[in-house]
């Protein structure tokens, strides 16, 4: 039926934009960390700002398209769950891009050798976050969500452990060090942001499960 075809096209267009938002987010997180760890030029900050602006625009496009589908097509059942969940997911990822920009703006002057363990933990946190985004993308693309909650929870727990270990290390470092205090505090903020990003990406998985199964699960 043509009506259904129109709805399918609209939903597919929204889905493609969500994937674009996922991609922008991964680029932003990876770039902000490379920039922090001084593997990237200062101009990287401008690129991250651009990505953040792009994420705002894509998010607004998604919200607008979802609103259009709601008022014009009156979706029901899975289609309705999809639209409602996507509006949330889109906002989640727009927020992640804000956090990613904040991370890059917390650029420490230097990470001395004593703090290299935190630097390594940050790398591991990022790897887990991007892996979690990939899992969400795969779930949304294919509708296959077997164990998605378990996988995301394990990765989020890993991130939490890395955060706790880094935080404790930094507290000890701050107690004994009188130099480089500002950089250590910045790193504390950075790992806090990354831990928060992990939570948001995990929560995204619960919305994807809601789309497919119509029931709420808590991933935390």
């Amino acid at each position: 039926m043509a009506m259904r075809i129109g709805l399918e096209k609209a939903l597919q267009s929204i889905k493609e934009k969500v994937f674009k938002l996922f991609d922008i987010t991964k680029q932003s997180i990876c770039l902000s960390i490379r920039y922090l760890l001084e593997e990237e030029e200062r101009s990287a900050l401008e690129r991250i700002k651009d990505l953040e602006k792009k994420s705002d625009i894509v998010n607004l496009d998604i919200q607008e398209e979802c609103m259009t589908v709601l008022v014009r097509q009156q979706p029901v059942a899975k289609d309705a769950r999809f639209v409602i969940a996507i509006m949330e997911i889109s906002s989640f990822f727009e927020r992640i891009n804000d956090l990613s920009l904040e991370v890059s703006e917390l650029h420490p002057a230097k990470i001395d050798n004593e703090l290299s363990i935190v630097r390594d933990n940050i790398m591991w946190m990022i790897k887990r976050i991007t892996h979690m985004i990939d899992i969400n993308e795969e779930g949304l693309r294919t509708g296959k969500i077997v164990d998605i909650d378990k996988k995301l929870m394990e990765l989020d727990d890993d991130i939490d452990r890395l955060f706790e270990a880094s935080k404790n290390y930094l507290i000890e470092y701050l107690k004994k060090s009188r130099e480089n205090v500002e950089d250590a505090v910045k790193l504390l903020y950075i790992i806090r942001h990354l831990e928060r990003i992990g939570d948001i990406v995990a929560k995204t998985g619960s919305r994807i499960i809601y789309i497919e199964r119509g029931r709420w699960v808590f991933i935390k």
Partner: protein
Amino acid sequence: MILLRGIHLRTKIRTEKLSVWYGSFQAIKDITMEVYEKTITAIIGPSGCGKSTFLRALNRMIEIIEGARVEGRVYLDGKNIYDPDVDPVDIRSKIGMVFQKPNPFPHLSIYDNIVIGLKLRGIRDKRYLDEIVETTLKKVGLWDDVKDKLFEKGIKLSGGQQQRLCIARALAVNPEVILLDEPTSALDPISALKIEDLLLELKKEYTIVLVTHNIQQAARISDYTAFLYYGELIEYERTDILFKTPKHRITEQYLEGRFG
């Protein structure tokens, strides 16, 4: 020229200060608006707001109502259809109409229901008429259902099929615009959805103006929506914009179902 989803739209019909009176009662008040080619324009509004009157004024059907009087202009491709040199019969073949209740001629077969307009114009070439019957029935998605019973009475078809037959009858005279006055209100929901699908197909070739009481129907299938209230055009906008962010409080209240 105006853009809709990246496509330039041409004005097909333009009304200019269009007013309609029934005796001393003014049913339509100074409506100026444009209907764009190959789009669906929905006319919505509460009962008695003048939707059907407005529609009938677009192809001079209003003239057959005793006591009705029209002021203002209605341009079809730039030519005022109310000019004295314009034949209303010509206009009604260019701007066809489909009514609320399916109204096939009860004494005529499916075949004759479709070609009646052509026969009245003196067209008798059987091969041509056969071709028209097949083409229009295919366009309205009825050919497979009726091809083996073309000479049975049209009235024997189901309600939804009868309405398709009426649309086929309107298409047979090769109109450029189709006016529909609540074409699905007498149909069951499935037949109504099929007619909506059909209209989405037909807008690829025709300009469609649809009067509907069903707000959701306007939202689903129209490109533009006009909201009428007590004979006035309150708001006319792209459908997605009007349904998301109506400019007038009265439009918003109507869409929200606060009156009607």
